């Protein structure tokens, strides 16, 4: 098992996180995530192959930027090896070896689910299961009483795949009753989407797009 498949600490990824998570969250809500709320993410690898903390990974960046404390971070990873690596590198952080939706369902069933930011960084196109997963998560989060900042990141361009734009993505999501239900329960779409060309230190032909959705209990 190659546990070093992507460099999630590359400058592109860091820049995109700054542009799509940290800055917009501060625009919509506060400078930092309130202490009682949690940061849930499909984080990928946050450790070096040797099991040491990876500088510039999502967790490191969010903590360094002062958005969250490490204890607020809930990293979800379905690959057991990567999960173990993350857990060994950051032993004091919450790690979940599951898919994001299931991990959140488990947390909710145990009564300690308090999400404030949810980052669904799907390594998938919208036409795959990413759309249904987004819709399901949004529907589930609708039942939470607090403010929530939700990001969904999809592949919009790659080899052998016709490029898609933001309109296509939203139209596609509109087909899901869970998505429409969420929007009748107070979710709002930011209206804009952020596109960037993948990860890595050289130019990439894979383009990603990030969509921001917010649920505010009190309109600002």
């Amino acid at each position, binding site marked *: 098992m190659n546990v070093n498949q992507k460099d999630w600490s590359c*400058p*592109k990824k860091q*820049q*995109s996180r700054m*542009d799509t998570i940290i800055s917009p969250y501060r625009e919509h809500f506060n400078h930092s995530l309130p202490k009682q709320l949690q940061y849930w993410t499909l984080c990928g690898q946050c450790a070096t192959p040797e099991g040491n903390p990876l500088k510039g990974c999502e967790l490191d960046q969010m903590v360094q930027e002062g958005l969250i404390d490490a204890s607020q971070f809930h990293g979800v990873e379905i690959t057991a090896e990567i999960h173990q690596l993350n857990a060994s590198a950051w032993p004091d952080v919450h790690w979940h070896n599951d*898919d994001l939706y*299931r991990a*959140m*369902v*488990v947390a*909710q*069933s*145990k009564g300690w*689910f308090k999400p404030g930011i949810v980052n669904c960084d799907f390594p998938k196109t919208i*036409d795959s*299961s990413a*759309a*249904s997963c987004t819709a*399901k998560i949004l*529907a*589930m989060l609708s*039942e939470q009483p607090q403010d929530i900042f939700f990001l969904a990141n999809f592949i919009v361009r790659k080899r052998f795949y016709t490029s898609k*734009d*933001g*309109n296509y*993505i*939203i*139209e596609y*999501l*509109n*087909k*899901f*009753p*869970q*998505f*429409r*239900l969420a*929007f*009748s329960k107070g*979710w709002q*779409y930011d*209206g*804009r*989407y*952020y*596109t*960037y*060309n993948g990860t890595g*230190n*050289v*130019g*990439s032909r894979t383009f990603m797009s990030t969509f921001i959705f917010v649920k505010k209990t009190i309109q600002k």
Partner: protein
Amino acid sequence: MKIPGFIHSWKQTTVNPIPDGSIFMVLRNWQRLAFLALCDTTYSIINAPMGSGKSLLMCIISAYRLLKNPSLRCIISVPQTIIGSGFRRQSFKLPDGRKIDWVPQYNFCNDDEYPDEGTIQGVISFLKGPHASFNDRILLCTHATLVAVYKRLKDRNQLSLLKNLMLWIDEAHHVKNIDMDVEWAQGTYISARVSNGIGDLSAHFVDHPEMNLQLGLATASFFRGDRCTLLSKEMEPKFKRFNLPYDQYLESMDYLRSFSFSFRICNNDHSKTIKEILQTRRGKDIIYIPHPVSRHSSGCKYKAVDRIISRCQEVYGGTKTDEPNGLAVLRNGKSDYKILDLVDEDQRPEKKQFTTTINDDRNALDLIVALGMFKEGADWIWADRSIIVGPRNSLTDMIQMIGRLFRDAKGKKHVEIVVLLPFSLEHVKKKELRDNLNSYLKAVFASLLLENVLHPVKIKGPAPSEDKDGKKSGKSNESHLSFFEYVVPDETERLKIMDDVKDRLLEICVKKEQNNELGSMWEEGKEAIKEVLVQHGVKERFVDITKHIWTIFSRRTLQMQGLDVDKIDFDIIKDINPLRFLLEYTSGICGIKTFRALKLAIHRTYIDFESARRFVHTLKIKSHSKWQKWCSSKKPDDIPVSPDCVYKGKGWINWGDWFGTGLIATNFRKYRSFEEAKLFVQKLNLKSWEEWTAYAKSEKKPKDIPAKPQDIYKDQWISSGDWTGTDFIALYKRKYRPYDKAVEFVHKLGLNNIVEWKNYCKSGKKPKDIPTAPDASKVYDGKWKNWSEWLGTSTTPKNSLLPIEEAKKFVHKLGLKSRDEWNKYCESGKKPINIPKAPQNAYAEKGWKGVNDWLGNWWSKDNIGKYRSYDESRKILRQNGINTERKLREWRKKNKNNGIPSVPHKFYKNSGWKSWSHFFSISEGKSK
């Protein structure tokens, strides 16, 4: 921050998310009654017509129970994914006013929501839980998925996952659970429940109430159409049933007021008749064409559709164009005629997508042509005419087809069902003519039953009432009731009774005709119906039920006289010949005007059972499939295709007896007890499972010993070794001594290496609970370390390895030339333990330079492309006794990587070459 090769930008969308403006539906009157009746029952049946709102009712009952019990989960199972759309999104109010947004989080009926792990594993994950919200406890899937899940859980002994679960089976006429009495030995009958996959699952739910399993069945017709029952006799009383009759449903409609059901006789080119029907009015039509193998089909379904479209063109004009959405449109400049051809498989996804939009606009579509599709679950509210080409054997199938019309829509007042019955008098052979007439009359007869489903006959009389326990009491009220349905609630059984009554009434008609008695046949008919009822186990209300059945038969005759059965007193009805309409129909098409002629024309006469069986034995047919094949080609007229029906009570035993094989269907065989059978098998002294299977295939095996004992005795089954007496147990099933105790035992043996361990294992002294391969996976998972610890040798093999140089010195002496030779040497058992078998791993970072270096071949990594010096080459040749050029060539072929050039006289020209004699160390003909 400047990032190389990074492109990023913010963009704006013009499309926005659509919030669902939820309108919360409230229960209709019948749904409210059904809810009150079924909301707290464990096993429920909803029997209501298509389009009446069963899906919503199921959602409402489920929501009520899910809210009441937070640990309960709900699965709704549908036969086809398209039917699942009815359960995808609902907003409704419970009777207590609570608002519910029903959006199942697990919808495996939608292509876009299939789980990555697959639908079967997806359902299993759902069953494992946990669950978060209300909607997270609801799952939608198909019957096929659910059956596969059940099978997998059963195979893996995980049926305990089926707990706290409410299962709704939509279109439950797919469920099959039938009790069969089968004679397995002379004079002895056993009763067995025969189920299909979904039937087996439903039986599991009924058999395990302790797991908090709830089951609901929903269907428009509580019969399957193949004379099999949905629920066994044991299961049925446990269910509470709510029935919404068609007439009540039709009365509740806002727009639809009437329906008509008629026949049209046509020849084999039915498209002409379709044209005539289309000319009567422009409607919203569904045409169901017959299956290509049907004798009513032209044989090619595509040509059949083309002919229909041509007829449409003749009626409505226009030029045909094919649209990207799958429609064929006849463009005539005024109002286009839009046809959806569901027979042609081309553009299936586009057509499927189009069908989801056809209810939005009445003008979206004019005609659907279908074969097997667009029946259950399909919805086109604007459809007002159904043309069914050729009769159908299954009443359920017919009900599903005409059910598409019974959807209320603005402006739709009347719906029309026309069955086209291809009939031709051109048949020369009597048999073909009879088959033709038979299927025609069968369709006519089926229409009686169908009409009774849509518009049930009700006889005025004292109604039975029920006390609080649901038991019938002696009190009675005067009411219009369907006594037949009350006393015989099982539709399948009612259909069988009707079929038998028809035969008896026809016999009476013939007898009366022969005796020139033209008066009423009520008295004889009454007795005949009573006899049939008794045969079918009916014990009460003979008079009421007889009146009921008589009226059902008479309705068509009355209709022909312009009379409405609802408005006529039974005293008049009883004087009517209930089969008169059959004569009316047949006189028009083939001039049959008497019951006698009718019976002769349609009834076969068969030879007696004994003679028929004797004849069949001579055919040496061994299976039912071969019997059917023979029937379709060579069967004489006087031998029945279904001897089990024709000779029932006249000597019929079973198919094995009929064919003369004596075989009994696997389900009905009775075997010796497990212990007795095992004892018998062990006495055979078989050495392996393979020997058992060979024996089981031979004719020596007694019939009461099963060939697959692991299936028959699955509850008692231990292992194949236990069965044959060899005590062999499959590796994965073996139970070994705990690791620590096993290690303790092995240490006492004082073995030094693996070779000694293997020899010990082969010696037969090893106890069975000590594994031969303790390092194999699943034997000592997580505990196994290495062989050194297992054998108790003082040092681990890795530490005791010789240094590479010493090891190489040893290996070089062996004179091995290749990796194969090295492997063979390792397997020989001669290799010392301190020399590794896989030196490339052991010395990977300790000076490993490749196999050639290890074996002492010249071309190791250091010597690639290099040759030996002149003197060194001479030494090698001398050592190997090579003294001629030919010997050198042959030796080089056998010994690759030898470091001696192929042309030494050129290679060593400037580095010591003297002569060939010198090179071969030959001096005056002698080797040095």
